[in-house]
């Protein structure tokens, strides 16, 4: 699908607003949107919401042989996916520049900064190591994917617990979570990316750009830093020329923001830990808001139930009694019965409906053959009725065709005699076999 184009008036308005130091949602230039972290039921699963941008992170592990040139280190694998539900412009399976750029940034931020101790992931040197895989999915795109993704990644890695392993000689035992508590990963520090959007050739800068601000910006600078003020990675894209002062200013702002966000992450991790220990409820289901007011909320209307019973009885007595149901079938011939007379055909002269009715009659007769043969022995009186033609409509084309068990279908009706009853069954079966052979 194509992304919605940005109109000229939106572009002009956002640029004017930036010049007046105003943002669309009322933030200040250096303000972040609300960061919300929620954990899933499994260890290593979390969703981070940065305003309306949502990223889901999941960490998983597996025992694999190590890389040949690094026999004592575990393996880290990072993958970011832009789900088509995040924005109309994202299509599955198509490698866009944005996707490549984001993946590279995540790799540099988390792998090259050596925030995870890979030596501790080694189980048997040269044979078995843990492969830790981090999958990030973008669920909604409202700007600044990289910040949300880096927060989600590091939070999921901190939250994750891998199974405990013990090595005795050559034997490796992997304990299930029930046998021994799973062990957290060994994480040295938490690098977090902060994005700066530049406008008007670097004159104005905004922290944490939203989706519309991103569309209008000249370029972006991403700085990944941890709370110890160590820069882990830096990337400038969009071809903007930045002065040394601006970069230094951005790094100072980053230090402040990273400190705040790291505190938030610690609190969230502690909370989740506490809830799990106390046996409370945790998981995504708990963090979804249940009640939301929409524009269509209406006051519940009071219903007057004072005289409901009397009104109901009135209605029942005034209503017509239901018509009697006719349960007795009318027997035409052995093998064909009719229940009720049917209503008049009001479809007009449609040839198709006539053909359909004739076909239906044939099908019905075969099915009810065996049943009706029992009834014919009881109701001999009803034979007299079949002499009267049953008129269902005025149409001459429409005729009720009743199949004879012994003869091929004729246009006229025939009588049945009690003599024919005994032979009818045999003849019927013979005819059935003939029909099957024909097919």
């Amino acid at each position, binding site marked *: 699908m194509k992304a919605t*184009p940005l109109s000229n008036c939106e572009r*002009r*308005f956002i640029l004017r607003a930036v010049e007046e130091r105003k943002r669309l949602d009322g933030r200040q230039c250096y303000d972040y949107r609300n960061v919300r972290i929620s954990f899933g039921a499994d260890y290593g699963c979390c969703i981070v919401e940065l305003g309306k941008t949502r990223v889901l992170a999941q960490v998983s592990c597996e025992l694999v042989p190590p890389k040949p040139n690094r026999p004592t280190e575990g393996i880290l694998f990072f993958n970011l996916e832009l789900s088509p539900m995040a924005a109309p412009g994202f299509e599955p399976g198509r490698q866009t520049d944005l996707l490549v750029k984001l993946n590279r940034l995540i790799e540099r931020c988390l792998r090259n900064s050596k925030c995870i101790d890979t030596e501790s992931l080694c189980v048997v040197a040269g044979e078995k190591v843990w492969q830790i895989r981090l999958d990030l999915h973008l669920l909604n795109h409202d700007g600044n994917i990289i910040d949300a993704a880096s927060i989600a990644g590091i939070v999921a890695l901190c939250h994750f617990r891998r199974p405990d392993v013990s090595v005795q000689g050559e034997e490796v035992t992997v304990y299930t979570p029930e046998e021994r508590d799973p062990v957290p990963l060994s994480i040295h520090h938490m690098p977090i990316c902060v994005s700066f959007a530049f406008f008007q050739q670097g004159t104005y800068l905004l922290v944490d750009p939203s989706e519309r601000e991103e569309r209008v910006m000249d370029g972006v600078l991403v700085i990944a830093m941890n709370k110890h003020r160590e820069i882990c990675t830096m990337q400038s894209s969009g071809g903007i020329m930045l002065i040394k002062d601006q970069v230094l200013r951005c790094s100072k702002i980053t230090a402040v923001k990273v400190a705040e966000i790291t505190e938030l992450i610690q609190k969230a991790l502690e909370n989740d830990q506490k809830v799990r220990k106390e046996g409370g409820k945790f998981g995504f289901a708990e963090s979804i808001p249940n009640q939301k*007011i929409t*524009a269509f909320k209406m006051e519940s209307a009071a219903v007057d139930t004072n005289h409901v019973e009397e009104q109901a009885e009135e209605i029942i007595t005034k209503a017509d009694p239901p018509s009697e149901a006719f349960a007795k079938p009318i027997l035409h011939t052995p093998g064909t019965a009719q229940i009720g007379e049917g209503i008049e055909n009001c479809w007009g002269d449609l040839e198709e409906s006539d053909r359909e009715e004739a076909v239906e009659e044939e099908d019905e007769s075969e099915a009810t053959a065996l049943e009706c043969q029992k009834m014919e022995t009881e109701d001999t009186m009803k034979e007299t009725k079949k002499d009267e033609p049953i008129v269902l409509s005025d149409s001459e084309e429409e005729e009720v065709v009743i199949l004879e068990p012994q003869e091929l279908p004729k246009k006229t009706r025939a009588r049945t005699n009690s003599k024919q009853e005994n032979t009818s069954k045999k003849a019927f079966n013979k005819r059935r076999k003939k029909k099957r052979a024909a097919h």
Partner: protein
Amino acid sequence: AGGGATGVAGGAYWVDSQQKRYVPVKGDHVIGIVTAKAGDVFKLDVGGSEQASLSYLAFEGATKRNRPNVQVGDLIYGQFLVANKDMEPEMVCIDSSGRSSGMGIIGQDGFLFKVSLGLIRKLLAPKCEIIQELSQLYPFELVLGMNGRIWVKAKTVQQTLIIVNILEACEYMTAEQRKQALAKLSGN
């Protein structure tokens, strides 16, 4: 969804629904964004599955010599002449008598944003309280497109932003909350 009987005996029911995705309907007035100029026809994005086409002659007073000044990225307020699931929708900026009656190119300033379709229908109701209360706050120009798009223009950027945020928030606010928010703003 919800329902309410329209007073008239014989029970006509209006079933309201909550959705954000627009499906073009003949006769609807919408705001479109010009994406391409292909010869005599403009292609507009209206938020549906197909782009709508708009002929350059479908403006008031347009002739072959006197063409409307439409650029890519402009906003157009028009109505659907043809809109069904088998063909691409067609828009026009004049009504059946040839007058524009408010349709055409929307001015250069102002801001465009998107809300749910239900909120638009609520705002277009004859005596909408939200619009009345807002108009007491600041003077502003407003164009509502049935495809969920709203264009607002007020005197300053700040005022425009305030109106945009209130309209977006009206989706989830009750009447009392809205009155409180507006009282705070007019007090400032």
